[in-house]
């Protein structure tokens, strides 16, 4: 019975199917909103579903210069780690799995999809992919620092005994008792920093230095085609959902209503709003940053915002 429940968790509800559908819908909403901001009609909201199913029906070419096993395994590795991450992120009161150090697990798992892009690109044996993976590495170094500081800040704020907690259960319990993190003024800079980390973690437009399709032909994905490319597109969509849900859990959590369906709908609403704020808006209003400009942006402005919150929380505000 327990095995069946675990399978249900992994394959259907917080796991694969739910993530894929919600992620692709969020990607569609993002494209539609960007189009409306540019005074276009835009594709239908289900367009990412069409893209994904079309890619499943295309021929998958494995280049002669590629190392076959790694080339096929890399996108699947990214997908698996994203699905595992979905099991740890709470929907208000509900989590599929919980432990004492969920945040650490999330932090490690978050780098795996990016590492999968790097490994897949390196295995494809294309010079464009080589440029792309070096840019992806710079991007990881750029956004990991502020992300870790934000997680530390939330952990410090939520710990009632004066230490730091890395457990989502405790963070949700704190928010249920004292109101969501965003309602404490000292957490607002950290929330803004997190909103700025999300687009580069997802690889959304102003920070998509690794997959710059106009300069380096989609970077690491240059040799991918057919269903493998489809899995990368799915990874991108799921990452949008995971990170917005992580934002919701860290800053807008709480006890919820107690009814799971209402909680899920509330989470989807929050995810949509966060997607529009942190991904669609910068996409529509700004051009792509240069690699070194992006690095500087994250290590100055965003890191400073996160550190301000950390210091305020440490001082007891």
């Amino acid at each position: 019975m327990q095995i069946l429940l675990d399978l249900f968790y992994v394959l259907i509800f917080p796991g694969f199917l739910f993530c894929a559908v919600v992620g692709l819908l969020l990607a569609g909403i993002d494209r539609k909103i960007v189009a409306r901001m540019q005074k276009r009609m835009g594709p239908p909201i289900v367009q990412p579903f069409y893209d994904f199913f079309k890619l499943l029906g295309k021929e998958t070419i494995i280049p002669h210069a590629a190392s076959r096993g790694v080339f096929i395994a890399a996108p699947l590795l990214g997908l698996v780690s994203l699905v595992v991450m979905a099991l740890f992120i709470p929907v208000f009161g509900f989590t599929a799995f919980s432990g004492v150090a969920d945040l650490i697990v999330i932090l490690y798992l978050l780098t795996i999809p990016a590492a999968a892009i790097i490994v897949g690109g390196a295995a494809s044996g294309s010079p464009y992919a080589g440029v792309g993976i070096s840019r992806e590495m710079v991007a990881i170094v750029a956004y990991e620092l502020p992300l870790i500081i934000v997680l530390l800040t939330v952990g410090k704020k939520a710990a009632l005994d004066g230490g730091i907690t890395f457990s989502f259960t405790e963070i949700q319990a704190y928010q249920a008792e004292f109101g969501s993190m965003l309602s404490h003024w000292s957490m607002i800079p950290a929330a803004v920093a997190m909103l700025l980390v999300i687009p580069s973690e997802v690889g959304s437009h102003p920070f998509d230095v690794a997959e710059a399709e106009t300069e380096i032909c989609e970077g690491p994905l240059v040799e991918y085609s057919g269903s493998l490319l489809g899995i990368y597109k799915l990874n991108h969509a799921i990452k949008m959902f995971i990170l917005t849900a992580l934002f919701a859990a860290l800053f807008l959590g709480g006890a919820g209503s107690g009814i799971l369906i209402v909680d899920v709908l509330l989470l989807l609403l929050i995810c949509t709003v966060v997607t529009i704020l942190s991904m669609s808006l910068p996409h529509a209003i700004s051009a792509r940053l240069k690699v070194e400009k992006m690095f500087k942006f994250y290590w100055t402005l965003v890191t400073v915002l996160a550190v301000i919150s950390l210091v305020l929380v440490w001082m007891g505000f």
Partner: protein
Amino acid sequence: MFKKIIDNSMAKSPWIYHINTGSCNGCDIELVSVITPRYDAERMGFKLTGTPRHADIVVVSGPVTSQSKERLVRTLAQVPEPRVIVSLGSCPRPCNVFKGSYSVEGPLDKFCEVDVSVAGCTPKPEAIIDGLALAAQILKEKRRQK
């Protein structure tokens, strides 16, 4: 049922790769104008891709010159099946005013099968969108026959 979903998605998400084989740049500008807010081909799912591996529709503009012939053949070989090839403007098929030139290798039909031909020098954006929509339908048919 799954096969039917894939077949229908083929016509709704055609990604375009554009090759310039010695065009005067007129048709290229008109192709780009198709994805601007005024004509917005993205509402039908069209998207310009940066690499032939992601492409469903290959748009060729310009007479095939001797310099670009080899590149054209190699690029077309990298596009995964099913694919549709569209010739854009008057140049690729009858070679337009460049016919008989020492550097023109001549009509595109010699190197590949052309599925849709959009004529005009340069064609209007409306005509290009019409041709691309037809190409998307042909893509679906090709997938169904496979």
